[in-house]
């Protein structure tokens, strides 16, 4: 808080009446040489302080919109300051000790002899400055009525001229006053006429307003509601620093833009702030981003122990998971019981499930964007947590104050050590461990250019019993360069790299000791542009190209005794590219339309040998007719197609609106998994001559209404979705190390439809949300020319078809330091294939299964409870800490994850497997310094 003290000192000096004027002229010992272009005022101060003995005292909020352009060589400070403050209403004064005070002129007046500053400016030989004052006489009157807070200050852009009409643009960054973190998704708006914009993922906003004086209001998650007074005559830049809303730490759930539900363009968009995520109790006490996403309407999973999510009837591979713009292929740790994202560095999570912006593509069902913090630009800080199974630590701070920040975070588990302490043999022989690391650097080159570098590494190892050792790794890196061309246009150039790989080592029997591995690499290059054309049009356009390089599997012997034949599947390579353009058109205050088109291309390229099969017959080894060899870079298969993105919003009243959207998505990469849940040994397959891309179309219609001055939100969304060519498996498919995987999979068609109803209460002692979803997800395999027909070619429920789903997430805040959460989840049991008959075969009784997915496991319900106890809210103390006590599955219900029948000693026994069958209490200690 050095600024805070500087400001206090300033006030104290003023009140004790230090005679600033008397010495103003004497403090000129050092000459200043400077060259700055649009630099923040603080940069100017630092430069001067570095070159001289001067110390500046000022209120940072008062200069947050003031930028300095100056070119001086060997000039005394007074001349420099005159030049800097030319055309502005800032004032300065010196003391003999070398203290320089910067204020807004009129407020200085209020505390000092009447003519104090008049004399100062008169003697400053600065006609420009004098002119400035004469030019804006009305400011004085306005200013003197209000105290000097930044909210009251009037920011003037350009020069007022009578009778001038038209629009001007205001743009800049929203930042947290304490940490310098950009504030994402806050609304910046004026009330009359109602014109609004949202800050984007960089905290950048751009709004076109009629010229004149406005009160600019800022509303956002976890920040104090703020306002800025502006007088806009020409386009200008205003960076706004807003304070964190400490009081709301445990209160807010989703206090986003309060009228976003109704007034926003987006459908099927869920944005969760980390604060909201932290309130939801989890099985192991650690905040889990993905678990919370799973509580949202339209998002389901096969079972508790699986991370894979099914969004609106899509399969688990149809979600694009972006972590700082790099694709994550396995977002889980420890069999899916932890998510791959360290909760301490996550800032926000956005899930797009119906109206997916044209900027995104490549997956059919959803885009989940996880954004991390930038790192504290103001001071060094840290946070962390100790849980029963994991610990984590995050350090962040400035490298160059307000310009460059870093953030490093790590998380690990000590489950391995604990396992060794267990008395049971199988547990002692088991091991399970993981860790992940994040590192980031953000550097603001100047006010127009910013560079973001981020890296992520995660590793999992586990061994079940003494058998095979599994490991998997995510490795990601991204570099982003954001360039602001002018107020209304900025572009981001992103380069990203993603790696995912796993290995299974089996060394129990020396003869068959082997190492099986899979890995894939993806490199992206992407350019995105945002053009805030005018108050009616916001245009996005850009291009992306992705190079995939997949090593689908290899088996290698371990040790000299091993007889395992090395077996390596051919590498697969492909380039996926897309161009997109979209325009958000605010036709009128009531009607807005989003029109987007993305055109994607996919080239599967050599070197590779590709099998060809007899046309119009199922692909099996007996219909294999030829093998074609392609040389390096040669085109094997080429797919392309348009992806339409359209949505419209019509405001019925101020509090209600209807929205509709139509989307088409194309997906060129497919996950191969033969298990009900996502498992670490799932592999990914690129489209090629034998595997077509998946195409999905979705229409959605929604009604949105806010009650009680936007504190309660109701949304009702219905959707219908069709999917073509998603991969389903033949009965008994073998997908591991298969050289002709196309003979094991089949292109299925799918359809999904449903209605999602959600009521959110955003504020108050009691807050949370209630949602109910009715949805169906069906699949069909009915083309004998392509594959075997499943269930006689009828539509059958897919594995994650759970028609009824009810979720309640609620919080009650007893005091500012004590709050509780209670969650309730109910859903229909998932479909399973059950045995319908038994028979005697040799010595054993065996079972005959029904058609696929004709029965369901019992319904699922679960209650969780958590208590958060905060330390006191003193702003200034060594460390802020909090305790979270939670009980997962409070009622101890044994929710069946699966039901199955096994032939044991010749008898058929039915079993149900539940993963969290008892109440699980956890305690976590979190700290922040």
């Amino acid at each position, binding site marked *: 808080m050095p600024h805070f003290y500087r400001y206090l000192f300033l006030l104290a000096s003023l009140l004790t009446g230090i005679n600033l004027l008397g010495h103003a002229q004497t403090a000129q010992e050092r000459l200043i040489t400077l060259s700055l272009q649009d630099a923040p005022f603080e940069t100017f101060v630092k430069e001067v302080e570095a070159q001289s003995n001067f110390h500046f005292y000022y209120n940072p909020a008062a200069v947050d919109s003031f930028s300095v352009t100056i070119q001086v060589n060997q000039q005394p400070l007074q001349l420099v300051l005159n030049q800097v403050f030319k055309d502005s209403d800032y004032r300065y004064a010196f003391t003999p000790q070398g203290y320089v005070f910067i204020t807004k002129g009129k407020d200085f007046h209020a505390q000092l002899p009447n003519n104090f500053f008049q004399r100062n400016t008169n003697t400053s030989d600065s006609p420009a400055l004098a002119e400035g004052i004469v030019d804006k006489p009305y400011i004085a009157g306005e200013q003197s009525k209000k105290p000097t807070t930044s909210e009251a200050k009037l920011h003037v852009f350009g020069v007022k001229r009578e009778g001038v009409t038209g629009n001007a643009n205001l743009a800049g960054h929203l930042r947290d006053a304490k940490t310098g973190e950009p504030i994402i998704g806050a609304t910046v708006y004026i009330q009359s006429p109602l014109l609004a914009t949202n800050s984007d993922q960089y905290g950048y906003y751009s709004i076109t307003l009629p010229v004149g004086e406005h009160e600019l209001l800022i509303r956002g998650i976890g920040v104090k509601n703020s306002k800025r007074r502006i007088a806009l005559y020409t386009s200008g830049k205003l960076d706004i620093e807003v304070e964190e809303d400490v009081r709301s730490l445990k209160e807010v759930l989703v206090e986003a833009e309060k009228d976003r539900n109704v007034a926003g363009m987006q459908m099927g968009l869920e944005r969760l702030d980390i604060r909201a995520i932290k309130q939801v109790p989890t099985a192991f006490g650690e905040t889990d981003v993905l678990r919370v996403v799973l509580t949202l309407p339209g998002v389901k999973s096969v079972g508790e122990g699986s991370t894979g999510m099914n969004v609106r009837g899509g399969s688990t591979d149809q979600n694009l998971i972006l972590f700082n713009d790099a694709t994550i292929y396995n977002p889980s740790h420890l069999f899916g019981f932890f998510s791959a994202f360290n909760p301490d560095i996550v800032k926000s999570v956005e899930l797009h499930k119906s109206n997916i912006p044209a900027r995104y593509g490549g997956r059919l069902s959803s885009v989940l964007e996880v954004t991390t913090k930038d790192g504290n630009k103001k001071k060094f800080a840290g946070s962390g947590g100790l849980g029963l199974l994991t610990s984590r630590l995050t350090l962040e701070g400035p490298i160059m104050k307000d310009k460059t920040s870093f953030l490093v975070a790590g998380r690990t588990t000590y489950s391995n050590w604990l396992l060794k302490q267990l008395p049971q043999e199988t547990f002692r022989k088991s091991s399970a461990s993981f860790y992940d690391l994040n590192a980031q650097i953000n550097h603001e080159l100047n006010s127009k250019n910013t560079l973001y570098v981020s890296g992520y590494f995660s590793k999992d190892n586990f061994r079940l019993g003494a058998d095979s050792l599994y490991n998997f790794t995510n490795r990601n890196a991204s570099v982003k360069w954001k360039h602001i061309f002018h107020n209304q246009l900025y572009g981001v150039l992103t380069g990203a790299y993603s790696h995912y790989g796993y290995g299974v080592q089996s060394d129990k029997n020396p003869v068959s000791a082997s190492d099986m591995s899979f890995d894939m690499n993806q490199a992206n290059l992407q350019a995105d542009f945002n053009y805030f054309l005018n108050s009616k049009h916001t245009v996005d356009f850009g291009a992306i190209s992705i190079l995939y390089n997949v090593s689908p599997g290899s088996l290698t012997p371990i040790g000299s005794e091993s007889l395992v034949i090395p077996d390596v599947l051919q590498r697969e390579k492909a380039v996926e590219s897309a161009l997109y353009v979209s325009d958000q058109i605010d036709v009128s205050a009531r009607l807005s339309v989003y029109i987007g088109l993305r055109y994607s291309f996919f080239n599967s390229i050599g070197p590779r040998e590709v099998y060809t099969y007899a046309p119009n017959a199922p692909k099996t080894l007996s219909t294999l007719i030829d093998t074609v060899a392609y040389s390096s870079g040669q085109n094997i298969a080429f797919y392309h197609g348009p992806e339409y993105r359209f949505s419209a919003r019509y405001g019925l009243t101020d509090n209600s609106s209807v929205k509709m959207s139509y989307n088409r998505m194309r997906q060129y990469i497919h996950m191969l998994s033969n298990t009900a849940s996502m498992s670490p040994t799932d592999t990914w397959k690129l489209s090629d001559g034998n595997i077509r891309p998946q195409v999905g179309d979705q229409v959605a219609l929604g009604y949105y209404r806010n009650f009680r001055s936007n504190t309660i939100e109701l949304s009702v969304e219905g959707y219908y979705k069709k999917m073509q060519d998603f991969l389903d498996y033949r009965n008994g498919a073998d997908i591991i190390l298969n050289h002709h995987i196309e003979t094991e999979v089949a292109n299925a068609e799918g359809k999904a439809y449903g209605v999602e109803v959600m009521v959110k209460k955003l504020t108050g002692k009691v807050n949370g949300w209630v949602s109910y979803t009715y949805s169906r997800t069906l699949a069909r395999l009915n083309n004998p020319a392509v594959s075997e027909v499943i269930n006689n070619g009828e539509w059958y429920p897919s594995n994650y078809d759970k028609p009824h789903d009810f979720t309640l997430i609620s919080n009650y805040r007893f005091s500012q330091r004590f709050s509780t959460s209670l969650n309730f989840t109910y859903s229909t049991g998932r479909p399973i294939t059950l045995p319908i008959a038994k028979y*005697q075969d040799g010595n054993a009784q065996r079972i005959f299964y029904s058609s696929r997915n004709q029965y369901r496991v019992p319904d699922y319900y679960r209650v969780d409870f958590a208590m958060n106890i905060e330390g006191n809210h003193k702003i200034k103390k060594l460390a802020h800490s909090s305790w979270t006590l939670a009980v997962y599955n409070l009622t101890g219900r044994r929710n069946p994850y699966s*039901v199955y029948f096994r032939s044991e000693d010749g008898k058929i026994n039915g079993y149900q497997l539940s993963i969290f069958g008892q109440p699980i209490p956890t305690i976590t200690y979190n700290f922040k310094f």
Partner: protein
Amino acid sequence: MNIHFLYRKGSLYLLLALFLSSCEEPYSPEVLEASNNFLVVSGFINSNGPTTIKLSRTQNLSDNSAPAFVTDAEVKVEADNGAAFLLQETSDGTYTSGTLPINVNQQYRLTININGKRYASDYVAVKQTPAIDEVSWQLVDDKVLFQVTTHDAQNDTRYYRWEFEETWEYNAYFFSVIEFVDGELVTRPEENNIYLCWRNNNSSNINISNTIKLSQDVVSKFPLYSIPLNSEKFARKYSVLVKQYAQTKESYQYWESLKKNTESIGTLFDPLPTQLTGNIRNTTDPSEPVIGYIHVSSVSEKRIFLKQTELPYVYRAPSVSCTLDTVAVEEVPEYFSGGSNLPVGPIYTESGTLIGYSGAWRSCVDCRIFGTTTRPSYWQ
């Protein structure tokens, strides 16, 4: 999972155990009452021994009656050159033949005619089963693990399936020297010995393995099954006969799917169960489900013996708690006539006066409760 164990050890262990092994409970679903009686064909065509085919019908899961056998069917093995061999029904639903003149260069199928409904398997090639090199055992964590080793020098077999028949020799808990005949206790003759018995058990799990990923067709110490060291099976002498069947790729896949469907499901990452299709079809209505997969192969067998003295000593509790009752002479008819108690021996005073007899539960005296006193021909 052992719930008691978890509760005892408190929540920390609870947590860990939960995420590692989760919780499995018996489950009896609402009765699935879809009526069904699909044809079940089990057995194989043996190229170097008698062929036995069993025909039965499926039952509802809740049906506890014995499976219904299909009698009076016409069952034939047909070669692709037209030769056909009729199988005889030797007992209800069991159709057998002697060793058939199988030619390894021809393909064979099974045809079934049940009251005019005709079924036929696909034609399948004859697989020659290589000899078993070794059946071995080793101690692993208080269990005896039995393993099989084999190879095919021609690298031709690749797919293997095994079955095994266990036999073990055991004692009753008490050695009875007298027997109760016509209301009187008389010395038990040697031929009425009920102390030493042999018992059999056939494998019920599916044991399969393949060597397609190995450079040589070698199966090394494939683990077939294991038995706890303190099992009654090892009380005196134990023997196992391992039977090896070479499989085609397709029949192997059938067994593998069947195994996945019925034995190895239920953990988190296991595959989904699937509807199985065999290679037998109704010739007029191919949509009728028929269960079974016919393959043609020879059989290789190997037997090993394992004496109790080869294993470390462990305490074996008897399967029932056995104590001796003392029966006064006058109580003899009352005590022994029901047949649930058997006499063990006479009791004398120190001076040699008979004062009564010792007796015990039948299951403690008569080993035939679980087995037979007939010594198997192969017993060493």
